C-alpha cells in the first residue's frame, strides 16, 4: 500500500453548544493532494486547527507515520513537519519580507540574528518556492494581497515540512496567480509532501486533487479517488441533497433608468466611465482583483476621496455624495466585501446590527424605541429566514451566510433604492449562496437597482442582466445579456480583448 503519512482517527471536538467534529477520521498519503470539502461550518477549519495544535480534541488520536503523537501547540506541529497556510493571512505588516519568512524560525550565527544571510536566503526561497522576485527588505504592507499570500506559502514551504495544509488559498488570487499556486503545489507533491487542500472552488480540484474527502456537519461522509467522482456529486454530498440549479431561474422586469453616473475618478488609477442602473436590473461588475470596482463604488458612496462626475438619481441631478450618511439618505447603500472587518459589529447582538444604520426610524428626539427596533429586526429575520437563537445572539456566532443576511437586513431597513453588493457570497457555502441569490432576485423584483461586484465569474454570469468589465481602474467593456459569457469577460478583464467604444 501507499505510504500513509498522517492519520486522524475518531476525532471529536465540541464547543459550548456546538458539536464541531463528531468521530471524524481522515488519512493522508505522502505525495498526494487530498482535498477536504464541505460547506462552511462543516468542521474543516476546526479539524485543521486540531492538526496544528490550536485546539485539543476531546477524543480521538493523531498518528504521524504510524506513531501516535499529541500536538499541544503550533510549535509542536511545526516540529513534526506540519505547516499550514491559513485563509486569513498571518503576516506582520509592519515588518519586512525577510522577517515574515523567518518568523519563529530565525537562524542565528553565534546566537545573533544574521540579517544579511537571512536576506540572501529569503531571495533564494522566494525564487525557488514561489518564483517571486521582491526585495527582502520590502515592508509587507507595501505588497499586494497576492504577494503577501505567496510570502506565507514560501514561509511554510521553506520550513521543509512533510505536510502542508492550504485553507482556501485562492480566495483573493487572480486566475493567473491561482495557476501559479497550482504549479507550486504540484511541485511540492512531486517532492513527496502530503498536501491537504481545502476549498470552495471545486473547479480547482479538477487539476489538483488525487483524493477527496467530504465532510458535513462535523461528520465524515466519504473519501473517494477524485477520478471516480464528479463535482456535481461532491456538491450533492456536501449539502446532503440534490442541487440541480446553482442560480435561481428568474424572469426580471426591468424598468426605467434610476441611476446614472457619468464617471468616477481619484488621484490614483481609478478613472471609470459611465454607470447606468435601471429599475429592477442587476448590473454585474467584473474584473480581476484590483481592477478598481470596490474603490470606485466606495468613492461613489462618499466613503473615500475622489471625484464623481454628475449623479442622476431618478431623473434628478444630485450633488456629490459627501459621505456614507448622505448616500444612505439618498437611497444608495453599499454592502462591504469583508463581513467581519466592516460589515458587522461582531460583539453586538443581531438586533443592534440590523438597526445600526436606520436608528433614526426607530427613535424620537434621539431616544431609541427598543420595541420598534426589535419588531423591525424580527420582521427581517423572518423574511430573510435568518437562522438565529434570538435577537440577543451575538453576530460573531452566526455562520457566514446568516451574517450576510443580517447585513442585508441592516441595509433593507434603510429602504434603499440602489443596493451595491460587494462579493456577497465570498466564503459562503453552496446552500446559503443559493438563498442569497434568491434574495437578490426578490429585491430586483421589488424594483430596486442592483450593482453586483463579484470575482466569482459564474456568479456574475448567472445573476447579471448587464455587465461592466473593469481593468486597471478603467471600464473596458459593457456587455449586454447576449454577450455575458465567461471567456468574453475574462478576455476583457485581462486585456486580451478591447471593446471599440465610440
Amino acid at each position, binding site marked *: 500500500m501507499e505510504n500513509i503519512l498522517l492519520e486522524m482517527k475518531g476525532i471529536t471536538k465540541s464547543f459550548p453548544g456546538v458539536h464541531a467534529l463528531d468521530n471524524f477520521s481522515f488519512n493522508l498519503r505522502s505525495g498526494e493532494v487530498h482535498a477536504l470539502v464541505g460547506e462552511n461550518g462543516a468542521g474543516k477549519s476546526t479539524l485543521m486547527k486540531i492538526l496544528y495544535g490550536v485546539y485539543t480534541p476531546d477524543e480521538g488520536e493523531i498518528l504521524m507515520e504510524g506513531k501516535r503523537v499529541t500536538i499541544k501547540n*503550533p510549535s509542536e506541529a*511545526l*516540529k513534526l513537519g506540519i505547516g499550514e497556510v491559513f485563509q486569513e493571512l498571518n*503576516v*506582520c505588516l509592519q515588518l519586512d519580507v525577510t*522577517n515574515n519568512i523567518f*518568523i519563529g524560525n530565525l537562524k542565528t550565527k553565534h*546566537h545573533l540574528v544574521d540579517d544579511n544571510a537571512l536576506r540572501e536566503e529569503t531571495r533564494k526561497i522566494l525564487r525557488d518556492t514561489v518564483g517571486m522576485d521582491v526585495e527582502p527588505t520590502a515592508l509587507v*504592507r507595501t505588497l499586494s494581497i497576492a504577494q503577501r499570500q505567496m510570502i506565507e506559502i514560501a*514561509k511554510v514551504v521553506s520550513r521543509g515540512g512533510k505536510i502542508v495544509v492550504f485553507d482556501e488559498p485562492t480566495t483573493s488570487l487572480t486566475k493567473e496567480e491561482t495557476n501559479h499556486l497550482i504549479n507550486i503545489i504540484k511541485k511540492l507533491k512531486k517532492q513527496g509532501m502530503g498536501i491537504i487542500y481545502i476549498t470552495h472552488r471545486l473547479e480547482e480540484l479538477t487539476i489538483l486533487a488525487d483524493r477527496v474527502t467530504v465532510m458535513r456537519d462535523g461528520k465524515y461522509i466519504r473519501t473517494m479517488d477524485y477520478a471516480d467522482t464528479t463535482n456535481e456529486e461532491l456538491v450533492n454530498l456536501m449539502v446532503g441533497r440534490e442541487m440541480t440549479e446553482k442560480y435561481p431561474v428568474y424572469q426580471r422586469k426591468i424598468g426605467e433608468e434610476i441611476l446614472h453616473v457619468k464617471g468616477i475618478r481619484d488621484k490614483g488609477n481609478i478613472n471609470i466611465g459611465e454607470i447606468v442602473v435601471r429599475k429592477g436590473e442587476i448590473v454585474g461588475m467584473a474584473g480581476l482583483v484590483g481592477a478598481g470596482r470596490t474603490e470606485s463604488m466606495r468613492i461613489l458612496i462618499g466613503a473615500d476621496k475622489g471625484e464623481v462626475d454628475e449623479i442622476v438619481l431618478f431623473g434628478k441631478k444630485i450633488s456629490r455624495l459627501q459621505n456614507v450618511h448622505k448616500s444612505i439618505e439618498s437611497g444608495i447603500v453599499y454592502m462591504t466585501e469583508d463581513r467581519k472587518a466592516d460589515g458587522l459589529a461582531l460583539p453586538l447582538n443581531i438586533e443592534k446590527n440590523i438597526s445600526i444604520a436606520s436608528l433614526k426610524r426607530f427613535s424620537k428626539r434621539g431616544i431609541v424605541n427598543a420595541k420598534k427596533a426589535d419588531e423591525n429586526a424580527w420582521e427581517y429575520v423572518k423574511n430573510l429566514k435568518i437562522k438565529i437563537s434570538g435577537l440577543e445572539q451575538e453576530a460573531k456566532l452566526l455562520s457566514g451566510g446568516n451574517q450576510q443576511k443580517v447585513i442585508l437586513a441592516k441595509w433593507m431597513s434603510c429602504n434603499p433604492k440602489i443596493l451595491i453588493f460587494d462579493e456577497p457570497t465570498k466564503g459562503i457555502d453552496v446552500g446559503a449562496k443559493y438563498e442569497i441569490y434568491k434574495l437578490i432576485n426578490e429585491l430586483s423584483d421589488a424594483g430596486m437597482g442592483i450593482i453586483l461586484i463579484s470575482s466569482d465569474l459564474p456568479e456574475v454570469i448567472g445573476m447579471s442582466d448587464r455587465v461592466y468589465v473593469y481593468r486597471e481602474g478603467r471600464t473596458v467593456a459593457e456587455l449586454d445579456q447576449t454577450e455575458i459569457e465567461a471567456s468574453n469577460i475574462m478576455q476583457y478583464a485581462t486585456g486580451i480583448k478591447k471593446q471599440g467604444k465610440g
Partner: protein
Amino acid sequence: MKNSKLLKGLKGSRILGPVTILVVIMMFLFITTPPFRQSYNLTSLILSAAVYVMVAMGASIVIIGGGIDLSLGSIVGLAGAACCLFIRMNIPLIPSIIAAVLVGGICGAVNGFMVTVMGLIPFIATLGGMWIYRGILMILTNGQTIAVRAYASEESLNSFVKFGSGSVLGIPIPAYVFAAVALFLSFMLRKTVFGRNIYFLGSNPDAASMSGINVTKIKFLAYVITGMLGGLAGAMLAGRLVSMPTNGGNGYEFEGIFASVLGGISMAGGEGGMLGAIVGAIIVACIRNGLNLNGIDAFWQQVILGVIIVMAVFYDTVRTKKARNAKS
C-alpha cells in the same frame, strides 16, 4: 549609487523626523534662551534626560511588543525608595542599585503575570499596578519622603551622590549608564531572536503564535525588562535627588509613552527602536528644560506638553494611515 541608497534608507526611516524636531528645538532654545547655553544647564539637562531615557526605553519595549505599561511611574518611585532605604542601611552602592532593578523586575513580573496568565488587557492591568506599587510605596514610607543624607554613612552617601549626579571626564555618570543600557537594549532588540520576537509579537500576535513563538513567555519577559528599566530609572532619580518623595516618578509613565511616540514608536506595536525612544526622551527633557528656563508656570507646562503629545499622536496616526494607503 550607494549614496542614493543611504538617502532612501534615511527617508524611509522613522528616526529622521524626531531628530529634526530635536535639532530644531535645541537651536530654538540656544538662540532664544541664553541660560540654555550655560554648561551647568547642559549638565542638568543630561541628568534629567538620563532618567527620562531610561523610562522611555522601558515604555517603548512593551509598546513595541504591542502592550503598554502605565505602572512605570509607580515602579520608578517604589524602586527609587527601595534604593534609598538600602543606601540608608549602608549597603554598598552596586548591590543597592541591583536591588532597585530587582524591585522593578518583580513589579514587571506582576504586570506580566496579569497580562499573560490572567489575560487582562494591558491598559487595565498596569493601571491596577500603578495603584498597587504606589500604594506599597506609601505603606513602606509611611507617606514620608525617604531622605538619605542624615541617615547613611558618609561613604555610602558620597557614592550615591556620585552615581546620581557626579561626573567622569566632564560627562555626568548617568549619561554613561544610559548609553551603556541603550547600547545593550538596542543590540538585544535588533540582533537577538528574543528581540526580534518582541517585534513579531507587537506586529501580529496571532502570526507569532501560529509560527511557533511562545508568545506568553515573550510578553511576560517584555514586562519584566520594562519593570527593570523602571527600577534603574528609580535608582538614578533617587541618586540625583538623594532622597525619594512618595510622589517620586509620578506621571513618568506618560513621559515615557510621550517620548516613545515622539521618537516614532508606533502605538500599534511592532515598529520603532531604542534610538527613537532616546531621541524622544531628550526632546521631552529639552522642552521641559526650555519651559523652566523661560519661567513658564508649571500648570501651563502641563497644558503645553499635553498639546504636544496630542500633536505627536496625531502625526503618528496620519503617518500610519498614509503608509497603509501606500499599497502598490
